[in-house]
């Protein structure tokens, strides 16, 4: 009963429950390994789409593209999210983790599921893209592996809920759960919806692939599949915003400007963000206008409002913390004096800026019902979601890992000089990629397309020369991003294997002390800012207004172009 199972980290003060710690390590390591595999596949994709290089033949290209999508969007991200959920529950709440044995069952189910699906893809019989749109058939193994993976992830999610219940029951903390845990809870709730959608569509599709069901309606497939495909990206959003808040707290000691506003914004995600399946169906036959407008706007853009709120409150909390430390001059001294050489911060901040300015704006504009006709199935779409999932989520997860792995493994960061450059290489390479892809998509270049020169087609047709240039530049940028990715894997794997040991972990049988909130009272932020009452973060407000300006201009530029093309109704 009283095995020595808890340790308190001497550097961070966090409390680790040993079984939770082991599960976090295993899931995080699996995540990083899949990230490395997916990164190599991604490089091959980008080099094939570079017209002068076109490194793969058509068959291999579609196989590799399918693998890249599955490994990155599902396996890497969800493994990391499972680790993150365990961290945000057991570690942040100083609790024991619920049912650690089931945690290992979940881990192995996910691994075996991922292996089975990979086996189907590598065999070449399942080059159906991650979306596997019916009636194009994949090997039954392809669907079965995904189902197994999803069930494992669902078990992990329920372990998170169970741990929250235990922490509450055993009173390991006082008051409400921390904001970061609340964000993880948001992600977990969205995960349940996501995995339910996945089960509802992938189980019948698997049965169809082995002959027990005669037909799957392609429109229904798209509707439900995107309940999985898009909502899983909203899990990422909730997880990455939680990480932004966590890193702001860890690096700056930043407090949320207002618990009410930040939690309210997460709550808007829970209510409205899971209807985004519609984004993918705006150019589909048959769905009503009312349905499309209601759903594609996340119910009057209330979930977009939530992201805009986080966009102010995350950097705002950093600004307040910096100003309180004395960096109170002018609009931006707080930002200039930020620790840009600390990869945990620079990764987080590049993630925030890239997600907001590139991923967020492009996503909302292309999700407008009519503008979508201009970008549907063009490479603008991968441009957008590399800004959200790679520049936003992956970079945030990398930044978190650079902080978490040394703490977990009790080792010093391996090659800190390389780590310092890692977010910049990865962030700038990815940001350029997203812009080049979006540019090429604006010129009409298709996504999921082996040959933009259309070799072998009955007609000649050439995209503007600029489109070819942009795809070449995308290839070059991918190389930069992959260098950043390699740097990440080297630093993380190096830390785990060769990092200089800090003090050894000492476990104690005693229960950790109850987690309490900070003692200081939080009434307003009166003494800082530029003297405008109630504006303790004026720099952030100016940046937010700048984002809004770009947003508004870009929105109307797109509708303006749309007005110039053929008329249709």
């Amino acid at each position, binding site marked *: 009963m009283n095995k020595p199972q808890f340790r308190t980290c001497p550097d961070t003060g966090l409390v680790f429950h040993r079984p939770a710690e082991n599960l976090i390590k295993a899931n995080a390591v699996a995540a990083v390994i899949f990230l490395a595999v997916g990164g190599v596949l991604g490089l091959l994709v980008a080099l094939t789409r570079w017209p002068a290089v076109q490194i793969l033949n058509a068959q291999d290209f579609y196989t590799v593209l399918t693998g890249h999508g599955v490994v990155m969007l599902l396996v890497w991200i969800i493994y990391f999210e499972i680790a993150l959920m365990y961290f945000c529950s057991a570690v942040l709440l100083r609790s024991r983790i619920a049912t650690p044995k089931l945690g290992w069952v979940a881990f192995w189910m996910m691994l075996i599921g991922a292996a089975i699906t990979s086996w189907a893809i590598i065999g070449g019989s399942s080059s159906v893209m991650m979306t596997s749109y019916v009636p194009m058939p994949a090997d039954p193994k392809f669907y079965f592996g995904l189902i197994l993976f999803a069930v494992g992830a669902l078990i992990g999610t329920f372990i998170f809920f169970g741990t929250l219940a235990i922490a509450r029951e055993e009173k390991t903390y006082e008051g*409400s759960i921390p*904001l970061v845990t609340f964000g993880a809870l948001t992600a977990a709730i969205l995960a349940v919806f996501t995995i339910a959608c996945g089960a509802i569509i992938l189980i019948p599709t698997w049965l169809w692939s082995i002959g027990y069901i005669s037909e799957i309606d392609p429109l229904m497939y798209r509707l439900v599949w995107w309940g999985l495909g898009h909502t899983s990206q909203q899990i990422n959003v909730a997880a990455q915003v939680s990480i932004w808040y966590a890193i702001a707290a860890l690096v700056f000691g930043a407090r949320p400007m207002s618990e009410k506003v930040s939690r309210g914004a997460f709550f808007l995600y829970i209510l409205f963000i899971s209807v985004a399946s519609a984004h993918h169906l705006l*150019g589909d036959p048959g769905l009503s206008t009312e349905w499309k407008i209601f759903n594609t706007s996340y119910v009057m853009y209330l979930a977009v*409002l939530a992201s*805009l709120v986080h966009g102010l409150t995350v950097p705002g909390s950093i600004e307040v913390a910096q100003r309180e430390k004395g960096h109170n001059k002018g609009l931006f001294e707080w930002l200039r004096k930020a620790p840009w050489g600390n990869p945990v911060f620079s990764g987080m901040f590049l993630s925030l800026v890239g997600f907001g300015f590139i991923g967020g704006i492009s996503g909302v504009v292309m999700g407008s019902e*009519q503008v979508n006709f201009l970008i549907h199935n063009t490479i603008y779409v991968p441009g957008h979601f590399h800004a959200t999932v790679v520049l936003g989520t992956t970079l945030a997860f990398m930044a978190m890992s650079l902080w978490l792995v040394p703490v977990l493994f009790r080792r010093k960061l391996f090659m800190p000089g390389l780590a310092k450059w890692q977010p910049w290489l990865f962030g700038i390479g990815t940001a350029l990629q997203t812009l080049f892809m979006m540019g090429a998509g604006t010129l009409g270049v298709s*996504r999921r397309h082996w040959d933009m020169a259309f070799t072998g087609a009955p007609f000649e047709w050439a995209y503007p020369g600029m489109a070819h240039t942009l795809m070449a530049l995308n290839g070059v940028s991918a190389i930069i991003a992959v260098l950043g990715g390699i740097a990440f894997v080297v630093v993380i794997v190096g830390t785990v294997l060769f990092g200089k040991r800090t003090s050894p972990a000492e476990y104690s049988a005693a229960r950790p002390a109850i987690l309490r909130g900070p003692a200081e009272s939080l009434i307003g932020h009166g003494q800082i800012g530029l003297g405008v009452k109630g504006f303790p973060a004026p720099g952030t407000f100016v940046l937010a207004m700048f984002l809004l300006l770009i947003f508004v201009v870009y929105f109307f530029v797109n*509708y303006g172009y749309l007005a110039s093309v053929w008329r249709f109704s």
Partner: protein
Amino acid sequence: MSAIQPPAQRVWWKQPVDRVEIVWIAIALVWCLIMFFFMPWWHVYGEQNYSGEAYRVNPQEYVEKVNAFVEQYTVRRETPQQIPVVRPPAGSDVYLLGRLWQWYPILELEAGETYRFHVSSADWQHGLSIQPININFQVLPGYDMVLNVTPTEPGEYAVVCNEYCGIMHHTMMSRIYVVDKD
């Protein structure tokens, strides 16, 4: 480190909110509502919309409709494969078929005329992408999608497939000729 700690005040929802947050939320909400109402507004005042009109159709029957349409209005054949070029009367029903790996047939339309444009697939999903104007729709087997299309500028347009449909996806291309009235 309070974002990873419980809130400082037990009753955190009574903590006053800084004005900067309230002002930003108000501005952002207004913009969200503008974007929201812009979509129905464009349905009324804009000229690029899709009404949602579509019919369930058996893919085989759709292919027969396309064949009848081709037989009736073919004006010439092009390319070594002798693909028919079809010129339907202004304002009539136009049928386009996506199949592995071809858009069928080639269309010749008059600028400024409005056609009832049908598109569907005989097999897998395809993506109808008209270049260089870059207008894109999803094409599903079993659904006859109907758009009232008015080509505005004469010229040669490419019809590209932009939904992945297998190994020869990149060869799936056709033409729409838009010509001046007579």
